[in-house]
């Protein structure tokens, strides 16, 4: 094959794509895998979970987050941009007074915080909040 301008460009693009792909997959797959494991592959409706989180968090080490979803059995919180996306799963028991809880979480950087709720009837719903993080909370 003669190496002219066109083939050289194509080769370069191909190589760049190959290099970029595994990195993106490693970061994205685990979050989606956790969602799949939680829902069992079921469809997830939008907007049934309220996430209360600051728009801008100065310190990623402690970001206050509250989740609420009426009629939920359990709520899973995921930080999609963290090295390990899992944050917490709240399972509400028979003595729970409200289907809401709040805690403080670590965020590595600006990212979406996703909450997925499992309803009593077995359906799933989700909510998303974007948090801007000034200083990340995962150490060097």
């Amino acid at each position, binding site marked *: 094959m003669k190496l002219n301008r066109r083939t050289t460009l194509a080769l370069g693009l191909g190589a760049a794509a190959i290099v970029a792909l595994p990195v993106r997959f490693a970061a994205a797959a685990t979050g989606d895998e956790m969602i799949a494991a939680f829902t069992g592959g079921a469809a997830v409706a939008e907007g049934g979970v309220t996430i209360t989180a600051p728009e801008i968090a100065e310190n990623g080490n402690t970001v206050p987050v509250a989740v609420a979803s009426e009629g939920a059995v359990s709520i899973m919180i995921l930080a999609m941009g963290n090295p390990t996306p899992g944050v917490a799963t*709240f399972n509400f028991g028979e003595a*729970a007074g409200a289907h*809401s*809880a709040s*805690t403080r979480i670590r965020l590595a950087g600006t990212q979406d915080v996703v909450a997925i709720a499992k309803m009593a009837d077995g359906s799933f719903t989700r909510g998303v909040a974007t948090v801007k993080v000034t200083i990340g909370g995962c150490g060097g």
Partner: protein
Amino acid sequence: MAEGVKPRVKAPATAKAGEAVVLKTLISHIMESGQRKNKDGSVIARSIINRFTCEFNGAMVIDVEMHPAISTNPYFEFEAVVPATGELKFTWYDDDGSVYSDAKTVTVA
């Protein structure tokens, strides 16, 4: 056992029957994420509390599965229904097998 672990719970002493009471819990714990590195470049081993439960007279209020993204000194705020006088039991489970617990009595007037 991690050092200096001290659970703190804020719960009302009295409540009306069937009322939802707000519970606030905090436990001092380093919650080492397993992501940080020492000065010499070696990874500091993960050491977190991985589960927290709250029960009222044996009935589960909340059961939380925790991951390294929970902040140092894990804090939780949630609500429980109190139908009668009873004891709230709080339990934290450490990665190293330690179990920390606290209890509060709520009196229904």
